[in-house]
């Protein structure tokens, strides 16, 4: 109850400050829109289906891209974790590649795939693949050895060993990496969409700039934040809670 109160106070203050600054008209309204203009832009955007379409297109892309990242990243991470040669060579490369913003792949992607959906997907995959791979590698190493041994002992091998033992055993150790991978995928997607006419949320955001409509820009920014937050807070938090209950670990802070 106290926590709810703190939230209410904080957001009321933030909202009040915004309203006040807008009311004072220090900047012209088209540069610094008031909260209600943003709310109006949101309403209109949903009314004429622009936002619905943009959300659907963007979500579809991020799910495909992130899905590919997770599958590839798990295979790669498992390979790196279980092979000394790969660990020594590719492990270092992966870490150094992580310092590269994924949008740097954009020029290459354009030339390789052309101006289309695949180029965007490529950037999304490159954005999240590394976090997933590193998380999987780390998770595989942190996972107690005994699970693999017990699994093999009970007759699991090959794919069955991976699917029924190694994957569920490493989940608590990779879930934060998966979450980070999702955040990177989402950011890479929006960045890539902003650079190319593409129907997604990124493009709608840029459209607001082209029309000098800051209320639309802020509205889309809020949407991007909201979707990122919901996936993080609902999907991943739920997954973490589920794992903690099953494993009997202390709840995540």
């Amino acid at each position, binding site marked *: 109850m106290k926590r709810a109160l703190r939230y209410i106070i904080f957001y009321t203050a933030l909202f009040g400050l915004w309203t006040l600054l807008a009311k004072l008209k220090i900047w012209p309204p088209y540069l610094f829109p008031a909260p209600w203009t943003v709310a109006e832009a949101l309403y209109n955007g949903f009314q004429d289906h622009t936002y619905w379409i943009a959300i659907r297109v963007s979500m579809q892309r991020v799910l495909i891209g992130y899905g590919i990242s997770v599958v590839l990243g798990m295979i790669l991470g498992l390979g790196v974790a279980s092979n000394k040669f790969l660990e020594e060579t590719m492990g270092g490369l992966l870490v150094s590649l992580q310092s590269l913003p994924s949008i740097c792949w954009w020029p290459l992607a354009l030339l390789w795939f052309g101006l289309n959906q695949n180029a965007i997907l490529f950037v999304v995959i490159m954005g999240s693949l590394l976090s997933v791979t590193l998380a999987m590698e780390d998770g595989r190493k942190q996972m107690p*050895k*005994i*699970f693999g*041994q*017990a699994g*093999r*002992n*009970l*007759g*699991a*091998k090959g794919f*069955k060993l991976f699917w*029924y*033992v190694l994957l*569920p*055993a490493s*989940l608590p150790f990779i879930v934060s990496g998966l979450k980070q991978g999702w955040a990177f995928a989402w950011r890479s997607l929006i960045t890539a969409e902003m650079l190319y006419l593409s129907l997604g949320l990124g493009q709608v955001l840029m459209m607001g700039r082209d029309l000098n409509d800051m209320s639309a820009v802020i509205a889309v920014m809020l949407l991007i934040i909201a979707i990122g937050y919901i996936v993080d807070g609902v999907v991943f938090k739920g997954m973490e809670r589920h*794992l903690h*209950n*099953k*494993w*009997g670990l202390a709840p995540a802070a």
Partner: protein
Amino acid sequence: MSTNAQTVRRQYPIPVEPLPSPGLKRGPVSVGHFDGERGHITSKVGLSDICLSYRTRTGERLLALDHINLQVRAGEFLCIVGPSGCGKSTLLHLIAGLHAQSSGQILVDGKPVQGPGTDRILIFQDHGLFPWLTVGENVEFGMKMKGICKSERKEKVEHYLRLVHLAKFEKSYIHQLSGGMRQRVAIARALATEPDVLLMDEPFAALDAQTRDLLHDELERIWSETGRTIIFVTHNVREAVRLGDRVVLLTFRPGRIKSEFPVELPRPRSLEDPEVALAARAVLDELREETNRSLEAEYKSGLKPSIPPGASE
């Protein structure tokens, strides 16, 4: 030479004074039985000249197991004792097929061991149960891997959970159980794959004394009900004498078989039986030398002289 479990013979098989005595067998003794009619060895598990060496982090080769020769009869309850670092756990891992020996051969039913198989199930000291599965799903796991159909699995899960008195906990998760209950689930999980040989790696070492007593009784009962062959590793000599038909003592690094002690006490036994204490004393006297060597090595190196189970990799 009948050291059968069920032979009820009230006698002290191991005289305490003087040592050594005719009742004691010293050194590696082969106990393989020749079956005259079929003409082959009837031992369930046969180890011949097992050696295991591995490279330590500093690059030197360390001999962990040195020419282990051991025959285990079908239905026998064999206990292996030794100081920490003697490679007794590693030996179980080799029989389980989780690691490969450097030389020598392990035969189970006359066939060489090549990798893990559900005819030999290992029960770990820290149980190795899967925390993401319920108790029932854990017990079911080995059967699922074997491809046994669902209705049969369900039936067997119920049967084996009843056997370890945990039928009510089928839907619980592992972390909700006490240490003793976890170890009983591990036993049920192992039995559910219907292995011929149960390999137990200090399964009760982490439990409190009362729980351990109960589990000793329960294990003895399950063993006599199911007729499995059990190879039980422990550092607790009393436990070994209380449970085993035979106790094998390993030396400290390299692990060699130092002595074998047949235990011909009537069952059911109890840790408090004076006969058990008496027999344990004889084993302890020999073990003490090895423990001292183990401790000495510990003081010298400043490190715990243990051989990790994964050392051979």
